């Protein structure tokens, strides 16, 4: 391990020199964890995530990560990273599809306890029938846990968003967990050019004293929490305590917006904002939609693209404004439920112009031709413009 030096988050994201490497997504996220100065990683095998956390294990063996172990299952891994975060260290973990569901009870706990855990979700199909293939149905379920949710398009996004996730998660006024999601296999197992910051530069260590909930270390005054635990009381104060706490978790996510602009350049990326036909999508569907857009524009069809990088807090104002312009909004997705279309529909004035599809799932790919064909079909049917 080279001698490492601490650099500021701003320097690392905006000014540090970048070196081009040819990496799969699982390597890119591990490289981000290395630079994020993670104290502890607790992991459990599941395809297509495992390779990332093998690499992080190697980094632990080399000294980049201070503690690391394989837990007994995803629920207990997510519990253990919570315990570690309550103990005041910076943690990383990752899972996929069925693992996400196995662990699910913990995600609202992370948010409720204001733990700035960063978890990578390399999404995949869930049973039944059995599938290990790409499918991001789980992101729709994660969206209401209280966590911040980012959706990366490619290995470069996966690297950058993981670093951005730590920086935003640990802002004192935010201090929430972040799920950095990618479409399994399409990103985790695909090799692309990724521009990395120097290997010997890392983020400043986590400072648990900024947490809105004190670390469980007996280093702050151990007040009695309460005379009567709220959980057993049926009265207004008990209800109001729980209600206001939930509101505060959501308010903390709202306060993340300005940091998302500062560190991520905003929650969305827009190409041709004045187009008559707009693709609004996220993850690898955005990559495919971009190719579809370019092909259609070459044919003289006025198509634009909104890539949604942040699912929580959802960029509702930005999406509502952008939705005023086009005659039709097409939302390609890698899942059967169409959770992103649902999100968009619920935020725009005239949602009859939102078309949910094409949707592919269970491991199916989404060739740009499919998006082009579906769009042309809609145009021929006179649905839009």
């Amino acid at each position, binding site marked *: 391990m080279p001698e490492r030096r601490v650099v500021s988050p701003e320097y690392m994201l905006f000014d540090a020199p970048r070196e081009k490497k040819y990496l799969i997504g699982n390597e890119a996220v591990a490289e981000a964890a290395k630079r994020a100065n993670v104290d*502890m990683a*607790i992991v459990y095998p599941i395809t297509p995530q495992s390779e990332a956390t093998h690499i992080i294990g190697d980094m632990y063996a080399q000294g980049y990560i201070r503690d690391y172990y394989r837990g007994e299952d995803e629920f207990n891994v997510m519990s253990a990273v919570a*315990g570690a975060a309550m*103990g005041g260290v910076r943690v990383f973990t990752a899972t996929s599809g069925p693992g996400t569901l196995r662990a699910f009870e913990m995600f609202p706990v992370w948010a409720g306890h204001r733990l700035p855990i960063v978890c990578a979700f390399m999404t995949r199909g869930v049973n039944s029938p059995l599938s290990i293939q790409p499918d991001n149905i789980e992101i729709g379920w994660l969206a209401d846990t209280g966590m911040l949710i980012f959706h990366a398009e490619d290995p470069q996004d996966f690297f950058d968003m993981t670093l951005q996730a730590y920086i935003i998660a640990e802002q004192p006024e935010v201090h929430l967990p972040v799920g950095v999601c990618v479409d399994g296999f399409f990103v985790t197992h695909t090799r692309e050019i990724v521009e990395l910051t120097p290997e010997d530069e890392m983020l400043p260590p986590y400072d648990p004293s900024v947490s809105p909930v004190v670390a*469980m270390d*007996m280093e702050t005054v151990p007040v*009695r929490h309460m005379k009567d635990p709220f*959980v*057993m009381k049926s009265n207004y104060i008990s209800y109001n305590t729980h209600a206001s706490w939930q509101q505060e978790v959501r308010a903390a996510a709202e306060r993340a917006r300005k940091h998302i602009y500062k560190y991520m350049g905003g929650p969305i990326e827009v190409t041709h904002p004045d187009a008559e036909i707009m693709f609004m999508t996220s993850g690898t569907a955005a990559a495919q939609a971009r190719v579809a857009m370019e092909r259609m524009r070459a044919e003289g069809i006025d198509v634009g693209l909104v890539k949604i990088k942040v699912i929580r807090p959802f960029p509702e104002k930005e999406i509502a404004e952008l939705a005023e312009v086009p005659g039709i909004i097409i939302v390609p997705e890698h899942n059967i439920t169409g959770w992103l279309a649902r999100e968009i529909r619920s935020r725009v004035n005239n949602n009859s112009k939102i078309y949910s599809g094409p949707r592919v799932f269970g491991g199916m790919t989404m060739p740009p031709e499919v998006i082009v064909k579906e769009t042309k079909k809609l145009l021929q049917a006179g649905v839009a413009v």
Partner: protein
Amino acid sequence: MEALKISPGFEKVMPQEYLELVEDGPYGRGLGVKDLGTFKELIEVHPLCAGCALGLSIRLILASLPNPENTVIVGTTGCNAILMPQVAIHNIHCLFGNQSAVATGLKRALRLRYPNTHKDVVVMAGDGGVVDIGLAPTMHSWFRREQFTTIMLDNEGYSNTGGQESGMTRQGVVVNMAPLGKKFPKVPLHEVAKVAGCAYVATATPARARRLGQMVRRAILVAREIGPAYVQIFCPCSTNYKFPPAESLKRAKETEITEYMVPEAKEWIERIEKGPKAEEVSNEA
């Protein structure tokens, strides 16, 4: 210990109970069960039922912590979770059954942050929480040789949810969810603990208070240096087993007190207890 002092000027506005804890609490004083009644305890009042042997056990456990100023307790859903928010040391109630996983992460984190101080992590949970819903993380923490103490408060059922059968209920007993009587015997978790990797295993009762205190203390000290420790405390529940509260301690005596240590643990305990400052074990790692 700095964290336990009151900033100058704030003495008058601090609650009386807190002042008493600062001035006369057990932090950093090496007190034990024998000193009860002479100092301000970590628990003042609790909402558990009259005659609750579990409440008494917790009081004894809290009085037996070798270094309460550096101890964090991890609990789980159960009667004890109703009491714990009133205890004046950091304690965590996360979810039902994940206490040993949370404790694993916590203990490792505290070891990273405080390499020169023993931050004792103590899991304290009911029998259902340990032997049923939390069995996997409990046993895996032992397999991995995680260095914290697990204490099971065994009241032979799920008392907090209305008296259902647990793995620790005795065979044949008719309780909720065992309408024809429990079909299998009490899980011998204290035996399982020995083969699963625990360096110290004890079964205790609040009816033998000083012995219980000694076992809790030994368990925590072994967990610091040698390996995982498990203490199982029999806490009869008068509410769900329908006996008069005044009988709790009599019934609590009806259990076998056992103690097991691996040779390294035995050596370590003998060294501490025969040392010149048996009551003031160093908290330095």
